[in-house]
């Protein structure tokens, strides 16, 4: 009877030893390789710092001008450009300029990292069903595991700072671009692909001249999602030392500052909407010649 009332449990001391063993070996690992790994991420750190300084130190009208121009290039919509300018003016007016620029910097860098890492992974995934099956569960895990859980090893390894924050953001934001690159390439019309092969394209030529261009709209939807998820991580990243709009929100939580929290939260929302609309409209614009007839 006892068996049915009590679930089999590992022996207490053995369990404690197991956990301790894992912790210790990871500590040894981080002591041995921590510096090396940190050194590996140095270029990324310098780039992030450089971008942040550039955004903060440049004259604000110039920065807003550049954003407006980017919004125009992406969307070709006057409304969106005006909306962008107004949003940034309001953010500046309420004293959130510096934090906002820090957030823009880390979002840009992490999105860039996700694109550089994610698209090749997506391409490899689309090559065979077996790699897809192997990579999918990893992506599921990255998206569902509570971020605090992977913050622990990252902090043990790299300490607190910009790079661990960046990594945390990337882990969370990477899956959509990988998934949608894979999906986009798999969705390319079979006959179009056959045509490319029949005329003697090498696998690389096929990828570059047909598969990537035709899946760009889908890939762009993935990049859009990646940016959104990166923004969602801003507050958590600020817990481990990333500057930006998340820092005042953390303060607001611990001190119950309603207005401060709201303002910074809305600033994140504004950034999200601008990024989302611009990238979405760009994605739609590049499929002008696909799909529907004129």
């Amino acid at each position, binding site marked *: 009877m006892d068996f049915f009332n009590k679930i089999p449990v590992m022996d207490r001391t053995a369990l404690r030893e197991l956990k301790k063993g894992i912790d210790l070996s990871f500590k040894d690992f981080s002591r041995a390789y921590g510096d090396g790994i940190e050194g590996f991420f140095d270029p990324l750190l310098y780039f992030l710092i450089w971008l942040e300084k550039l955004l903060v130190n440049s004259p604000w009208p110039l920065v807003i001008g550049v954003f407006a121009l980017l919004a125009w290039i992406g969307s070709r919509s006057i409304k969106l450009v005006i909306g962008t300018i107004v949003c940034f003016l309001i953010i500046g007016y309420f004293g959130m300029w510096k934090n906002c620029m820090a957030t823009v910097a880390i979002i840009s860098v992490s999105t860039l990292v996700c694109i550089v890492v994610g698209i090749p992974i997506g391409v490899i995934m689309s090559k065979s069903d077996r790699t897809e099956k192997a990579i999918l569960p990893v992506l599921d895990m990255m998206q569902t595991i509570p971020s605090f859980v992977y913050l622990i090893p990252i902090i043990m390894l790299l300490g607190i700072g910009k790079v661990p924050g960046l990594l945390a953001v990337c882990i969370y934001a990477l899956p959509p671009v990988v998934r949608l690159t894979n999906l986009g390439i798999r969705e390319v019309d079979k*006959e179009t692909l056959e*045509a490319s092969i*029949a*005329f003697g*394209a090498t696998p690389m*030529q096929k990828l570059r001249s047909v598969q990537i261009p035709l899946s760009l709209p889908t890939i762009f939807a993935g990049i859009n999602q990646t940016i959104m998820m990166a923004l969602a991580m801003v507050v958590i990243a600020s817990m481990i030392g990333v500057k930006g709009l998340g820092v005042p929100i953390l303060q607001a939580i611990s001190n119950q500052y309603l207005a401060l929290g709201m303002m910074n939260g809305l600033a994140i929302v504004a950034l999200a909407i601008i990024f989302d609309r611009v990238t979405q409209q760009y994605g739609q614009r590049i499929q002008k*010649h*696909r799909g529907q007839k*004129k």
Partner: protein
Amino acid sequence: MSKIEINNVYKIFGKNPKSVLPMVKDGLTKEEILDKTDHTVGLDNVSLKIEDGETFVCMGLSGSGKSTLIRHLNRLIDPTDGDILIEGTNVMSLSAEGLIDFRRHKMSMVFQRFGLFPHKTVIQNVGYGLEMQGKSEEERNKISMEKIEAVGLTGFEKQYPNQLSGGMQQRVGLARALATDTDIMLMDEAFSALDPLIRSDMQKQLLDLQAELKKTIVFITHDLDESLRLGDHIGILNAGKLVQVGTPVDIVMNPADEYVEAFVKDVNRAKVIKAKVIMTPANESNGIDKSNVIKVNEDQFIEEFLPQIVCTNSNCEVIDKEGNIKGYISNKELQSSLLKS
């Protein structure tokens, strides 16, 4: 040496095709194989020869394996067993690079749903094969413009495929296949997606081009009229088996089995059969009244001179190009050739 030679090719789709191969070779039917092993037989012991400069039409209903067969020629699909020789080269023996080179220079292909690149303009589409061959952009555009002109699309070269109608899109597909100037052209149901008028138009265009270019064309279709019009030889596939190969007249006059018979049952024979096929040779024509004859060329189809005969109630005197009398056709010959069965 034949231009294309296919020897005992088998293609089985499924998880472990090799294991099923002996059963197929033992003569089990497609249905039995599917029941027993969950494998689909695509091609079952297909052998055929296609000569240089001819149009070979491969015909069958959907699922008969014709699209599978054509994809074996440029190895978009690999056979489970058997050899494919193109100009004496076994394509199965080619290395990866060799195969790519072979596809670039030996064969081009036209697709049922066109297979155009929607993100490229017409001229870029037409030049794609040339780009793969490594030609410079200038040279590409020059050749592409010639081919665009040849298919009658001048003025559309800067448009994108989906700005064109179906017929025009397939002309782009045809121009793309012509541009690489390969000896062999594969056409996979190239005109099946087009409406009847445009299809007939495209068939004529293909015949005109072929009269000039003399390429080896392998043409897939499910339309008997199309195959009779285009083919020098026709091969008929049923459930992965090649049931008959022959000239259009062979197929219509002597169907090999019930399947082919059902196919040719409704065909307008007058459209297919030439005067020289049914005539009684001049030296055996004693019983035919030669007082009231009209002259017809030996290569004319019955359809072309039938109205004349009916109106004038006369017999035919069949002559060749030089005007020599080759034979005669009376009502008796006409009747027996046009009656079904």
